[in-house]
């Protein structure tokens, strides 16, 4: 199967992912998931937090993405993410620790801002965990 779309995921720290794929789905900031097939009309849209799914050689894959921007062309999807990791960059123990910390913070949080920050950390760790569990199921 051909892979006509070039998926690129960039963060300020590094190039996370760059390869030819055949289908991409990414979370937008407000409108749920956006599915991209070849020859999609060019689109610019904010990206939300969640998992990016893509098909490569008929195999489903995913990676995490947190905020940023997506630029879609007929033959490319470029994600400018604030943060992003591929599955092999994730460390289960670290995520577990992060989750425990976030839960503890959530309990201790006194004001709204602290509560939100803790919630965000918890959500991020959940998304990462989800990414890992998806990968092992294949």
């Amino acid at each position, binding site marked *: 199967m051909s892979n006509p779309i070039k998926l690129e995921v*960039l*963060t*300020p*720290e*590094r*190039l996370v992912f760059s390869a030819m794929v055949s289908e991409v789905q990414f979370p*937008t*900031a*407000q*409108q749920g998931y*956006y599915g991209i097939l070849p020859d999609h*009309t*060019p*689109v*610019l*849209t*904010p990206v939300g937090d969640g998992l990016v799914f893509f098909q490569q050689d008929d195999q489903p894959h995913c990676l995490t993405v947190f*905020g*940023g*921007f997506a*630029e*879609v*062309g*007929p033959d490319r999807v*470029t994600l*400018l993410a*604030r943060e992003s990791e591929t599955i092999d960059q994730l460390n289960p123990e670290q995520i577990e620790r992060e989750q425990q910390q976030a839960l503890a913070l959530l309990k201790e949080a006194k004001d709204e801002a602290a509560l939100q920050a803790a919630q965000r950390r918890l959500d991020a760790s959940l998304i990462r965990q989800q990414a890992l569990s998806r990968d092992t199921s294949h």
Partner: protein
Amino acid sequence: MANVQDIRRRIKSVKNTQQVTKAMKMISAVKLRKTQERLLALRPYSTKLDEVVRHVVGRLRAVPTLQPGPVAQAFLAPREEKNIHLVLVASDKGLCGGFNANVLREAQAFLRDCPSHVAHFQAIGKRSIEWARKRQLKANGEHTGLAVTELKQVASEIAAQAAEQYEKGEIDALYVVFNYFQSAVAQVPMVMRVFPVEIEPHVEFRAETPHLLEPDPNEVLEHLLPLYIETELLRCLLESSTSEHGARMAAMDKASSNAEEMIAKLTLNMNKIRQASITNQIIEIVSGANA
């Protein structure tokens, strides 16, 4: 005349200094490599983001029917610059040649020629804080001892703050004074306006169909602006940090070779004096034997 003992002592002290400068040079070289890697890693991201911003802004400016929201306005229709937010980036430590002096001079010149009022001033690095204090500039935010990994956090804080201030109408523009990293040996102090974005008329309109802006242009701009400011600030901070290590490396290299030169001179001098005293002694012995 200085005696041999004195000169030997001096050579020893110069050697010690040289060891320190050599070590500092090597440390800077390592740090330079690390920060430079980060700077290079940021480049594809910031280039792409810049391209997207220019594309969107270039297009929306051409469409006057749009009613921009307060934040989107910063991109589309710059207000008159009455109040500005200034971020001055220098280093915490000295011993890096003209690094701090240059950037502070640039800041001085900018403040002198700038017609607008500096409503909000932020100093990054001990040297810039001291400089501001000397000139009785009140800094609204100070950062010192930043590690490379913390730069992102700082950049996003400043960006969020600036965007909020713009929205409230407290500031009309955001400027950064920093050292631009040209190469390991050349750092150029410069002033950059982060926003409003300066955009040349969009000549190379790409041939493909223009992008849809989802969900709507305003929304896209409201997301794009903070991200853009954040990235540009991060780039400035990284440029400055990379420049600092580059400047220090060059300065320490110079110091080490100066020390080398000095040791050579002193050694020559010492040998001359020693030889002179030996010759003297021989003359005394010979003339004594002759007598």
